[in-house]
């Protein structure tokens, strides 16, 4: 994506996860807080319980997409950011939940274009019942996730270093500022 286009790019933020499964709610919660804080023109924010097929029609309408999700692997509270590439092999055996990489593969196969895509995750520590309430560990990860998203929607941000769709990842260190480990 060239810089000129970045200036007028359309960005879609998708927070997803179950609102009643503890820290799994962090994706939708961060999306809600972004929405409440306000986002620049050209940036849309949505929350989803699960990722479903019709989202493909939204993805192909945007230049950059940022998925926000909880992670189960890693150190609780750790925030990671990585770029995503289409992967048809990430296909679910069921229809009620799709992997973001599968959705990108739908975009590629059906529409011949794929938005530049990032996945920002926070590792949760508890996934038992709670209604839109995070553990303190996950709550502490909200601000770093927000910082990542703000960098990803800033056309001049260093997130462009992650623009190639690889599994390169960045983590949030203990210093409080996002740190890429590429």
């Amino acid at each position, binding site marked *: 994506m060239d810089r000129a286009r970045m200036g007028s790019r359309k960005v879609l933020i998708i927070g997803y996860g179950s609102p009643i499964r503890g820290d799994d709610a962090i994706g939708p919660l961060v999306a809600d807080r972004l929405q409440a804080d306000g986002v620049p023109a050209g940036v849309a924010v949505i929350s989803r319980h699960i990722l479903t097929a*019709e989202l493909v029609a939204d993805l192909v309408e945007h230049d950059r997409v940022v998925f926000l999700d909880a992670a189960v692997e890693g150190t609780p509270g750790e925030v990671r950011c990585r770029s995503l590439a289409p992967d048809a092999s990430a296909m679910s*055996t069921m*229809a009620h*939940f799709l992997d973001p990489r599968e959705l990108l*593969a739908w975009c590629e196969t059906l529409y011949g274009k794929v938005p530049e895509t990032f996945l920002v995750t926070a590792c949760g520590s508890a996934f038992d019942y709670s209604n839109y309430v995070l553990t303190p560990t996950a709550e502490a990860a909200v601000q770093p996730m927000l910082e990542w998203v703000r960098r990803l929607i800033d056309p001049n941000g260093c997130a462009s270093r992650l623009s190639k769709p690889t599994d390169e990842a960045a983590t949030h260190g203990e210093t409080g500022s996002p740190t890429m480990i590429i």
Partner: protein
Amino acid sequence: MSRTVVIEPVTRIEGHARITLQLGDAGEVEDAKFHLTQFRGFEKFCEGRPYREMPALTARTCGICPVSHVLASNKACDHLLSVGIPPTGEKLRRIINLAQITQSHALSFFHLSSPDLLLGWDSDPVSRNIFGVMRQNPALAKDGIRLRQIGQTIIETLGGKKIHPTWVVPGGVSEPLTQEKRDAMLALLPEGLDIAKRTYAFFKTLVPKFKDEASHFGNQPTMFLSLVSPKGHLEHYDGLLRLKDAQGRILEDMVPPHEYERLIGEAVEDFSYMKFPYYKPHGYPKGIYRVGPLARLNNIDACGTPYADVALAEFHMLQESGPIASSFHYHYARLVEIIYALEMMERLLKDPTILDARVRARARSNRYEGIGVTEAPRGILMHHYRIDDEGLITWVNLIIATGHNNLAMNQSIRQVADAYVDGNNLQEGMLNRVEAVIRCFDPCLSCASHAFGEMPLAIELKDATGRVVDTLRRG
């Protein structure tokens, strides 16, 4: 030597299930069972909660169609309040239900079943999936995405963008419709109807190719249960119960849904967490019946909208006489219902009273027992609550649409297995047909939980001692 074939998980359905085929000494099928392997326990853990929480609690039963549970639950709460819903509130509820049916049926047809229908039951399982469909017929795949998007957009326009909308409330809906929203929804419907009509026309060209499957995919005499309107028309939100037998004779008609216990009993079996509802007067298991799109179209006298009524007439031509018996034709019925839903939404949105501000009746609980019945995409959905003087839930019974079809699904896989499975020469295409007959019913097995990682399909033949004698793996 007796052997067992296990198909687990059953793919391209909503939720987690397993199929076992018991083979005899000569490799013939002796028994077939469909197992629901999840236990949820919603009825039990809702006890003690205030009844007004029930719509939000029970919506979590299903991550893909919470609207159906929200409606059935609120109708049960309406009954507890003993109120009549303002007419506009009822119309708005009808619209969100029809939008739900549109997007759910679209998922079933385009995403779950089209790989079999377009690519063939015996095609390479590696490419017999949605990507295979995209390559073979990209226009169809795009139509499926767009139709789902239209249904989902209407749900979000009415219910708000939150994951589990709370717009439908006991007594009606929380907010009236604005003209801006009405116009936005109306603008979507012509495109949706165009998609539905061309998909229906395309599917009609495929149906003759599947004569063999149609004659073996749950092609069995059962009764059919559904709601119908007082005029005998297609009805998804309210209405009265009608039960027809396999010959088309009406056994029960215009039964108020609150009397469902007179018609329906529930049995349990030790091989599944899904209950086995049956028609009480015929006993268990003879009281087998089917619900859902096939039953609804078999039971009605007319749809009540122009294009859907033409399609209904063509649906009845699938068989010389009587109710359409083959479960394969659930696919056909689903497409007719999508046409109906889009036509009816347009009619309701153009109703001059749809912007009326009176959309909710308010009251406290006025009885101890409430029953709410709607037609979910997959069939009749029943919520039945009892409360105490404080309005706390003391007892719950939920009869889910897929549960009504449990006996029929078990009978159907037996029929398909008898027709296609050769235990001495197990082929993937044979087992895919066993799965595919389940997909005809589009079962929803309480799918609120996520699936993590890959779920490969492994089919093993074991002898009586548990020794694996043959294996097929997928994924």
